[in-house]
């Protein structure tokens, strides 16, 4: 990704690699950006590849990731299952809306990465029957706090904006506050449980 970024296709090891590289603080690596099966190392332009990177990559990809990372934070998010697409999603999953809500509350979701808008986390851990493609026609405005599903992920919109995901519920929990010392509630690797409000 130009001379400022090195994109590593790390598959299912992306999150482990992200956490290991965060701890390693390799000189020359300005930022680490995990995504869906890949990790971007943002580098200072003109700088050589960070020393020690190859050794570290081999360690993680061979499964010898050294010391375990810091324990993940766990969040409980109170959700009203009142989304406009709840009935349709339940029907596609062959369930009643109430049992879909119970199913979602029984899952432990994990933050794979953030993107799309500040604080928007892609939560993995949905069962296969809830892996839906995006809506054919995106909405021009999705309200802040909307809980939604698409592409195998659950996501919660921190702010209002356009969106193509299926809306299943809503929450009042703030997810992004640029004035806070930690602006986003969710960080990659965090665990998330939905709780019926």
């Amino acid at each position, binding site marked *: 990704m*130009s001379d400022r970024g090195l994109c590593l296709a790390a598959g299912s090891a992306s999150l482990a690699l992200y956490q290991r590289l965060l701890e390693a603080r390799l000189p020359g690596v*300005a930022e680490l*950006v995990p995504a869906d099966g*890949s990790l*971007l190392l943002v580098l200072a*332009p*003109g700088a050589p590849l960070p020393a020690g990177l190859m050794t570290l990559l081999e360690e993680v990809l061979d499964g010898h990731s050294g010391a375990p990372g810091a324990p993940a934070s766990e969040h409980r998010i109170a959700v009203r299952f009142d989304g406009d697409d709840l009935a349709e999603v339940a029907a596609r999953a062959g369930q009643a809306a109430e049992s879909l809500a119970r199913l979602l509350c029984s899952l432990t979701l994990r933050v794979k990465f953030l*993107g799309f808008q500040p604080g928007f986390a892609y939560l993995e851990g949905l069962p296969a029957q809830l892996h839906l493609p995006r809506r054919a026609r995106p909405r021009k405005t999705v309200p802040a706090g909307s809980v939604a599903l698409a592409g195998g992920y659950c996501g919660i919109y921190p702010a209002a904006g356009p969106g193509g995901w299926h809306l299943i519920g809503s929450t009042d929990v703030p997810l992004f506050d*640029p*004035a806070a010392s930690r602006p986003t509630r969710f960080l990659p690797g965090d665990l998330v449980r939905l709780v019926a409000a």
Partner: protein
Amino acid sequence: MIEVLKPGLLDLVMDQGRPGFRAQGVPEGGAADAPALMLANRLVGNPERAAGLELLLRGPALRFPEGGRIALSGADMRARCGDAMLPRGRTLEIPPGGVLELAQADKGLRAYLAVAGGIEAPPVLGSRATFLPSGFGGWQGRALRAGDMLPTGAPQGHRQGVLTFPRAKSALRILPGPQLPAFADAALQALTARTFAVGPDANRLGLRLAGPALAYRGGELASQAVLPGAIQVPPDGQPIILGWDGPVTGGYPVLAAVIAADLPRLGQLRPGDRLAFAFVTLAEAQAAWRKHERDLDEAIAWAA
């Protein structure tokens, strides 16, 4: 203090951006033509990361109740103060009560105004850069309006300088993107043999280009982290160069990416401008960055 008498088309408080929050979904942002603002800051004795104004196409009218030392860079908006035309790239003095008037630029897109002491907007996530998509940073998270009173910091230094900063007019230099192998040979051919026009919806999120359609032969792509300058190709085959405030992850294939040294040039492209691309090697990109840094170091001649 700066009083906005009449806003321009889009006047934004900008600095060199807020690195460090991409993993939380927040792009780096900052001045589109970053070296232009950096050099204007140097001309008025500011730290390079001080906040100034990024002015789009047509500038504002600004009043300086206490006067102030300023510098302009980037696109030429034919600045004047009273009857005096004010040149770009020089340390200038605005007298107390003076009004700086900026007109429409004939060439280029963004002008930068630095004022001694910098604009003292409250920093958000370590930066004063306006981030319009989420409405934070800069001045109340928005473009300037008539009546805004912008506080400025204490001036430092008093040297007079003159700026000479060469800008290449050649093809934008690019490196291969992660999905390059999945593009048709004809797409690669077209990318470097043909020219592209900047489309009407070019902004800080991205520059949509019009030109030959670039065919992608790969499958559906998982979201990947992207950087400003990445050339994404949506299904219609018309490339988008990702801008400074663009999302940190994207699902479109990335064919190539503009090298760091040429990224600021994107900030001066306006709708209708034509551009060409040329592949370089990583070593050439790194050499270009070192030359860019040398040019920055040598850009200002100071009066004795």
